[in-house]
Every structure is written in C-alpha cells, then in structure tokens.
C-alpha cells in the first residue's frame, strides 16, 4: 500500500446553518489539500467560514456535502465513534479561547488529554511543560494563569499525544505580540522537529507568514494559494 500523497483533503465541502430564509451558507464547495508535515495558514476576513472549515476538517462537524479524507480515507461520513477515534489518535486542536478545563490544574489538563487518548505517559508531561515554559505554573488552575500561559498550556495539551495533524484556530488571537511570537515559534518547532502537519487559521498576515503556505478564504471558498 502506497503512502497517501495528502494527509488531509477537503473536496467540495458545503456547510450551512439555520433553516428557511435564515439559512446561512458558510462553506460553498471548498477544496483544500494539505501535504504531510506542511504548515499551512488559512487567512480570510471574519465570517468567511474559517472556523467552520477547521471544525469540519477536525471531524467535529459534518459537512452537508463533500468529503474530508485523512490519509486518503474518507472520514467525514464515518459514524461519530469512528470520527472520535480519529480525533483521539491523530488530531490535536488549539482553540482561540484555549478551552482548558477550569476545574483541573494545568498538569491534569494534559494528563487527562493523554488519558482520553489511552496514553499513560506521565513521564513526558513535565519535559513538555518545561519546553512550553509553563512548568512553574502547571500546578495552578487555568484561571490563575496569565493569558499567555494558558495558550502555551493549550498548545502543550494539543501536541502532548504527538498528533499527525494540529489544527489551530486563531491561536494568537488573544495574545500580545511577545506571547504571539513565542507561541508561533512553538508551533513552528513542532512542525520542524516532529514533522507535525499544522493547519492554522488566522486573519493576520504577520502570523500567517510563519507558515510554509498560505491560502485565502472568502465567502466559503479558497481563493488562491501562495507558496
């Protein structure tokens, strides 16, 4: 069996919300292909469907039409348990609003993420936290951390299980420029050192410049590609 040429493919994706006259078409026949170990930035204005695209690519939402293939295999049509398994084993998410569990410490957020993935590698947590610069605050709950610390912790959680595919939704949206630069460096390092494929949503050209490839979205479609 030959290795798939693309780790991630979106073919003719359609997605809409609401019904009747209030129906809003967010994705309109979107196509996108991502190679293994690629760092891709998706840019576009607010409301163009970037986050929805990421949710569909991450198998958290089903498209109304079209398909999502991961390693050449159709994934969007799979039943929820099978999609959950792909999310569990192959995908890591970094959300704009971090989405850390507020009742757990930073350390336990990562520990839980690993546990959900069937991994009991507590030994690897501390070095990861140190690499992310949040080891000192890992015993605190997210609410007691700074915004920058929370976002670094969210990245640590997303990459702790070494996913093939990291999906990041405006990861620097809540950060000041210093923290944003540090976070982008972390992502770039994960891409360079571990060969993790990254798809990053952003509306900032400066942030997008960190990626190896940039695509633009408008009105639910990919407009062009800059390599």
């Amino acid at each position, binding site marked *: 069996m030959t290795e798939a040429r693309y780790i991630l493919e979106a073919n003719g994706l359609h997605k809409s919300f609401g019904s009747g006259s209030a129906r809003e078409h967010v994705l309109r026949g979107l196509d996108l292909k991502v190679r293994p170990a690629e760092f891709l930035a998706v840019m576009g204005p607010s409301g163009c469907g970037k986050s929805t695209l990421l*949710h569909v690519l*991450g198998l*958290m*939402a089903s498209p109304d039409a079209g398909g999502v293939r991961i390693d050449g295999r159709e994934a969007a049509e799979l039943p*929820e*348990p099978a999609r*959950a*398994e*792909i*999310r*569990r*084993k192959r*995908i890591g*998410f970094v*959300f704009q609003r971090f*989405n*850390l*569990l*507020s*009742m*757990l410490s930073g350390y*336990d957020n990562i520990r*839980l*993420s690993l*546990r*959900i*993935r069937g991994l009991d590698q507590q030994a690897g947590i501390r070095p990861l936290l140190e690499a992310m610069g949040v080891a000192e605050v890992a015993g605190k709950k997210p609410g007691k951390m700074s915004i920058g610390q929370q976002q670094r912790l969210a990245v640590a959680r997303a990459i702790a299980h070494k996913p093939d595919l990291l999906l990041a939704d405006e990861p620097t949206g809540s950060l000041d420029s210093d923290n944003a630069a540090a976070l982008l460096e972390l992502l770039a390092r994960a891409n360079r050192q571990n060969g993790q494929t990254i798809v990053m949503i952003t509306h900032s050209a400066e942030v997008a410049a960190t990626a190896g490839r940039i695509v633009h979205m408008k009105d639910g479609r990919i407009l062009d590609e800059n390599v």
Partner: protein
Amino acid sequence: MLYLPLANLLHHKLGSAGSALGVGISVCMLITLSGLSRGSLEEVAERWEAVDADLIVYSARWGDNITTISGGELGDADVERLERLTAAGEKCVERVVPIFLYRVSIAGQEHNIVGVAPEDLPQLLGGGEIPKPGRSFDPQNKFARWLKGRLEEDRPQGEEGPPLDISDAELAEHGGLEIVIDARLARATGLKLGEKVYTAGRNFTVVGIAPRGALARAFIPRATAQWLFSGPLGRYTLMFVKLRPGVRVGAAVEAVRRTKRLASVAIDEYRGMLQQRFGIMYLYVDTVNVVTLIVAFLFILVTLYTMVIQRRREIAILRSMGASRRFILSQVVAESMLLSACGAAAGVLMSFAAAAGIEAIKPLLTVKITWDWILTAAGAAAVGATLAAVYPALCAIRVDVIEALSLE
C-alpha cells in the same frame, strides 16, 4: 480515573454538598428508622428469649398470638397440671414460673408490669442479678402469706365479691408495694433505690434495679399484681416452663396441647409473634424509607443534570479531544457514585449520631444499627446513584460540540 469527577465535585462545592447531604439524610433515615422499628421489637424479643425457660404456656382461649396477653386466665390448677405433664410416658417439666402480666403507666409511659413470686424472679432477669444494695421485693414471701390470710379472714373460702378495702399503708407495711425496675427504666426516669414511683394507683418503693435484659421494665410481688388487677389470688396470665434435660420441645408442646385447656409455644417463637403483629409497622417504615430514597435520588438527578447543562462546554472540550461516549458516560456515573458514596458515608455516621441522640432523649427506645441495614443502604445508594446518572449522562453524550464550544 476519578480525578475529573472529583475535580468537578470540588469545583461545584455547594451543589455537591447539597446532593451528598440529601443522600446522607436518606441513608440516615433508612438506617435509623429501620434500626428503631426493628431494634425496639428485637430488644423485647431478646428479653423474652433471655428467660430461663423452654416454653411459654398460656390459655388455649387466648389465640395464636400472645404478644398483647394480659389478665388472669390461668389458675393454680393449671400450674399443677403442668407439673404433672408427661411426654413419652415421662414427666417432662422441671420448673413452672407462673406470672401475672398487666399493662400499666410508669412515669408517663406504658409498660408491661410483671407480677412474679420472689423466688421465681431470678428466672426472669436474663441471667443477671439485682446489684447490691438493691434486693428483690418481699424476700421472705411474707406479703403473699399475709395477703392470703387477710383475704381468707375477711371473706369465707370460695365466696366472690368486690375487692376488699386494704389501705396503702397496710400494703406497704407488709411489703406489698415494693417494686424492682430495670436499669433502662431507672435511667429513663432517674429513679433510685428507695424512691417512690406511682403506678397502678399506688405508690411503690423501688427496692431493686435489675440489669438490662430482664423480661420486663418493672416487677412487683405476684400477690400484689393478682390482688390489684385480678381480685382473687391464684390467677396467672401465663407460665414459663423449664423442661427436664433431654425432653424435646416439640413433644412437650404436643403434651400441653393435649390438655385442651392450655396452649404453648417454644420461647424463641415469641420473636416471630412480635414480627407478625407489628410487621405492618415495618411496611410503613420501609415505605417512608423508599420514598425518601427516591426523593434523594431525584435530587441527585437534578443536580447532575444541572451540572451537565452548566458544563456543556467542558463536555464539548472532552469530545473535541476524542473522548468516547463510554468515557463521558463513565465520568458522569462516577461523579454520581462519588456523590452517593460521600452521602452514604455521611449518612451512616449521622445514623450512629441519631441513634445515640434518640437513646439519650428516649432511653427506653432501642435503635439497633446492623451491618445488614448499612449494606442495604449503601447498595440502595449505589443503585440510586447509577439510575440517577443515566439521564444526565445521556444528555452529556448528546452535547453539540461546536455549539457548546461557542458558549461563553
């Protein structure tokens, strides 16, 4: 993996504490009410079983259940009949202890008072003795002889009539108004040796305090009881019979039955009679317990459901990480089980405190907390927790991930 459910509970301290308290109160009610209803009856049964006898013999006219027996159906002739009783051609009775039983009020509460001959009293004390300086009433049986003489003197033999007018001073002077109470009644009433207690229309003097486990709360001379409650002497309510060694209880019961006038049961059957007569009380108590448990677990269900609704975002985060439905279900159920376990543990502790409190306030009540009921309550808590978790858990796995993640 319990740290997430535990963290969730600690994160919502007030709701968690309220739910656990609800379960705790239910478990406490279950254990305490069962312990109270069954404990008091069992304490009575144990006191009857502690009598040094094998059979209880009573009038065949009384019926099948003697738990409320009183009055004077039996007479001296029945005592003699029993002493001559034979089974398989052999005399089978070693000792007969006839007693007169009556319901009286002592210190505002109803009790069985037992009239017994002084020489028979030790058979009814559950193996204990009256501690010194206390003593039995009418130790030389002088009162019984005096009363018999007094009655014969005033009324020719065989003649019936209204009770004779004997003054309290006369009764007291001859030792007829002496009473032995048990240690629990003494504790409940604060009565001490030498003090007077008013009952059956007379002032009795406490001469002895029997240890816990004696047949009744109060004992008086049999002649006093017969004269006060019956009129003629030589009348008895029932008789305790000690069989000779080697005599089968079943054979003796059959021999008693053949007399036609008398009936008998093995002494350990008294417990069954109590349960038969007061079993309906168990039904009431158990019904209240079940309703309380259901309310408690509805409370847990609402709490968990509220927690699930409040935590849709957290659940969506777990699902975005690929948490399986089984994982989410197990977390909600584990949370419910943790709540119930904390509540049940608190409930067991509360039930011991409640039992101590009840016995302190009402020393004559017995709350018997048994492992059976602790395990029953724990089992009910576990089952209730699981059932209460089902609906919130199903709601949790149906959370729309995208919608929930967009919640503030």
